[in-house]
């Protein structure tokens, strides 16, 4: 093998080097700035490499580099990059009312290791790589959830996540053992052939049952979603952002990797199960979000509901479903990060709660408008990105004739609309006292403008996300 044959693997190798370098950098740099700069420059380079670098597919034993995996990797990279930018003020003294985070090198290093796990997950050609990727994408978050120093909530979030995570990884492992028993191999091609040959094997279904339990946890799909509100609320906001966007995208990628290719033959039998889980997730998420005062907890419930909508795509057939999934993840990421940046801004002086949003329209009208756009997008109002995403999901389900399910989903969207409007209302309520105007840094303004424009552009002109989705579909 010549060196040139390794070029398709370059992003994965670079990421590993970057992760190790960032982990070490705290030893040399005291203020943590170096870690931040190294991470974002590295990630930006990685994103460019993935977008414009080598386009050739390659197979390294059971590690497959394909166009689809590149798209997923690009998504993970961008989500992590946004998380890194979001986390910056949280490491500055006085940057957040909840307390300053320390050791940015370790923090970013853990994020990057997580990403490495996600990379492995989407490049997996057999269940060993798949399992290792899944675990590597989960474990650093145990530590990250408990990252807020001397904070009881954060430690509680960490311990809850580790218990639920350990439980779900045991489920996954148990499930994989049955899949192995049913098919006698761990490689995806052999798995696919065996599943097609004997789709009614009880051992196979035992495996799918436990595996779905494990993945459902990571996805925060009801009835395995109950950790999400507690962990999201207790974890530092950047970690919550990473959980709700990157980690969720990884879980969706895992679901798609497994159930749209090697286990595709049994997916029609699983349709009622996905439908029930979708309904449960929508209902649980929407009911939960209605009463929330804490924004992180609110995000958790709303993201559970979004998972419910996304599960509709698992009912559809082929490329349309994948395109709908990727498009939704992109738009959800953009919308989510716009909201999280606003949370970061108000978190500088007060708690990141609903009442913390009060008077936002006076303190910074632009931010209030962005918040309205976010909420409209989450609620699916055109011309914002969220509308088109929902439209694609619903039409994927309708095309398969699941009208009842579409009806339930649409009714849920109306309920969700109610609480999204509550958030908008808070921003336009006058605060009790005189609120100081908010000053944004130029970089913040740029990021917020970028996200706001993306919200509009993706909704009106879906071509960029559409391109991503198509690339992920082939």
């Amino acid at each position, binding site marked *: 093998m010549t060196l040139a044959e390794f070029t398709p693997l370059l992003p994965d190798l670079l990421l590993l080097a970057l992760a190790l370098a960032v982990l070490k950098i705290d030893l040399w740099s005291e203020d943590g700035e170096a870690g931040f700069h190294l991470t974002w420059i590295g990630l930006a380079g990685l994103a460019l490499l993935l977008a414009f670098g080598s386009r050739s597919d390659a197979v390294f034993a059971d590690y497959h580099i394909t166009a689809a995996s590149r798209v997923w990797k690009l998504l993970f990279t961008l989500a992590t990059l946004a998380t890194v930018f979001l986390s910056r003020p949280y490491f500055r003294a006085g940057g957040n009312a909840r307390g300053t985070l320390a050791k940015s090198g370790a923090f970013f290093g853990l994020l990057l290791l997580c990403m490495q796990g996600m990379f492995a997950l989407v490049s997996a050609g057999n269940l060993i790589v798949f399992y290792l990727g899944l675990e590597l994408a989960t474990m650093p978050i145990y530590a990250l959830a408990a990252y807020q120093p001397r904070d009881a909530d954060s430690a509680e979030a960490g311990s809850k996540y580790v218990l639920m995570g350990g439980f779900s990884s045991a489920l996954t492992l148990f499930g994989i053992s049955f899949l192995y028993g049913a098919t006698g191999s761990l490689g995806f091609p052999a798995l696919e052939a065996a599943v097609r040959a004997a789709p009614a094997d009880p051992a196979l279904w035992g495996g799918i049952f436990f595996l779905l339990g494990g993945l459902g946890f990571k996805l925060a799909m009801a009835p395995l979603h109950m950790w999400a509100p507690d962990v999201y609320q207790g974890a530092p906001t950047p970690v919550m952002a990473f959980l709700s966007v990157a980690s969720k995208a990884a879980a969706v990628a895992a679901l798609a990797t497994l159930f749209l290719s090697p286990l595709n033959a049994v997916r029609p*039998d699983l349709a009622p199960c996905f439908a029930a889980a979708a309904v449960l997730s929508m209902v649980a998420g929407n009911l939960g979000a209605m009463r929330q005062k804490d924004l992180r907890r609110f995000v958790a419930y709303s993201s559970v509901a979004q998972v419910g909508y996304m599960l509709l795509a698992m009912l559809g057939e082929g490329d349309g479903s994948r395109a709908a999934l990727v498009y939704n993840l992109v738009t959800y990421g953009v919308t989510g990060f716009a909201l999280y940046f606003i949370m970061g801004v108000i978190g500088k002086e007060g708690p990141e709660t609903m009442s913390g949003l009060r008077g936002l329209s006076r303190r910074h009208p632009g931010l209030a408008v962005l918040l309205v756009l976010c909420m409209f997008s989450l609620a699916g109002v055109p011309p914002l990105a969220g509308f088109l995403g929902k439209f694609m999901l619903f039409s994927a389900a309708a095309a398969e004739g699941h009208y009842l399910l579409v009806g339930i989903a649409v009714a849920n969207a*109306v309920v969700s609309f109610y609480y999204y409007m509550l958030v908008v209302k808070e921003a336009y309520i006058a605060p009790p006292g005189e609120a100081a105007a908010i000053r944004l840094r130029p970089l913040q303004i740029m990021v917020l403008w970028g996200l706001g424009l993306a919200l509009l552009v993706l909704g009106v002109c879906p071509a960029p996300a559409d391109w991503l989705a198509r690339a992920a579909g082939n």
Partner: protein
Amino acid sequence: MGDTRLAAFAWEPMHCAAYGILLLPLLSFLINGLWLGRKSARASAWTATVLMGATAALSIIVASGYRDHILTAPHLFPARAALAFEHTWLDFSLGSGAVLSARLGFYLDPISVMMVLVISFISFLVNLYSIGYMKDDAGAGRFFPLLSFFSFTMLGLVVSSNLAQTFFFWELVGAASYLLIGFWYAKPSAVAASKKAFILTRLADAFFLMGLLAVGVNAGSFDFAHLNGPEAAAALNHSVGAGLVTFNLLSLGTLGIYMGAWGKSAMFPFHVWLPDAMEGPTPVSSLIHSATMVVAGVYLTARLYPLFSAAEYTLRVVECTGAFTAVFAAAIACAQTDLKRILAFSTLSQLGLMMSALGTGGGGEPGAAYTASMFHIFTHAFFKCLLFLSAGAVIHAIHSNDIREAGAGGLRKAMPRTYWATLIAVAAIAGIWPLSGFFSKEAILHAALANGRYGALAAGLCTGALTAFYMARYFFLIFHGSAVGSRAPHDSRATHAQEAHPVREGALMTLPILILAVPSALIGILGKGFFTGTVRLWGAEGGASAGVSESALPMRHASSGSWLPAVATVLALSGAGIAWYWYAFRKNGAAFPDRRAPAWYRILAEKFYIDEIYLFLAKRVASKWIAAPAEWTERNIVNGAFDWMTGAVKRLAFLQSIAQSGQVQAYIAVALLGIYLLFRFTGPGY
């Protein structure tokens, strides 16, 4: 459908004008919203007005181009419809290889051209009016971009060539109205009203989305040209099962779509948002009620009329909701004392008339029903806008919404131009010959008669009488009212206000009022030919192509309904006469229905025989048996049901929060049990 594209005319001014109609209001929104509105409210007001005026001019170009190139060339355009332009927006692949395209297009046919004209013209006048109205408002810089946006969304809606585009703009109209109704967001009632409007209409839109998906996916296209053809109705007309129930896909799809229209056009029981929407500035109300927002529902129903007329069941629903809303809202309007609320209920009632007219089309005369409804949308837009603008002028002058305070002001002398304009509008909506409302109402009644829908006919006649009564009451109380007994607790405020700001009519606000008075008066006579000719033809052919039998094209006035206009006029005149006698001649103030007013007992004591009859009619019959129960239903049942629904959801949310106990071991147990049950009941059962 023949060649529906306008490729040969691509260079025509009409083609460019079509782009301009959508781009200019959008441009106005962007310029004013991002930049000019913050610099100078006045400059932004004028920019918005000029751009809207230009849009109105372009719409005339499009309309004349449409007349010259398409109407006169039926051999090229047998459906009298064409696309000024169409761009593919995105394609959905539907698994089986089929592709569903959502496009952005500009569809030209009689009703879309008519609506474009109406919307751009009325938006322009409302903009002009708002310059004066919003002059002293701190938020004026925010107001004009939103107004332009509102017009843009509505224009995009009426010209859309397919259901996906319609839905897209449909939701945008909702969002724009949300922002405008809640324009004074410091006022809690405005915030509540905007939220109510948005959430209720979105509830209805949820059904619309379902219907749209069901229809689009099964017919294989979102395009109106396809959906209105016979193949689409045939493709949809079969039963599908969902769980335990089976239903006809055509009925389900059209009903779903109609539910969207139901909510947007505020048919009972979705009507509750509309009166509250008065919390917005008056120019916004006038736009919502005349040319944008609420007529969207009627327009959508008309747009898909051939498809709807293939679905008999849906048409009956359309007819019943329309007829009931017409009478119900008219009855409530009789008992209101808030200027804008009276107008709001009158809009509801008129929309109900239009809907019921569409619904009557299942009989032998689909073309007549369709025509009548579109004709009434057209005339109603003008006189309703005029009513709102003049009401706004009155409110602006007396700083109160209360009809009894207005009556105290001697406004007839202070605002002569507003007085006459209001008189024209009131007579028009009451259906007095030769004003515009007379002709369109007559057309609706004829359609009901010709199609043999006697229930709708009775509802129409009844609504006509009630409308004449409450509109005359409205007029006489404002301009001929007296202070006797009616100005109990509020008068000091009104008087102070008048002393501080002497009543006068601003030129910028009066101009649009005077302009609108002309079409309100004349458009009925002038437009009759267009509607009974062109539009009717389209409706008739569409109905025929969708499998509805079409008997005879010429209007059947002479043979079957020559007595109708006479009866309608007599009813209208007697309604107005009662109001005149009661509120102008007897100077009874607004005693009816206010039982506490002391004047009531004085008149009781006079014991005129004629009074007794009127008393009986007004108080015993009208108030007790119509207006009061209607209001009671409104308050307790309709609002109660919506409250109950939200309450139930909130209680469920409370239960959910108890389940989320914070015990991680409970979470794990739920997860294990949940995933087991999930597989037990939905898994393949191995």
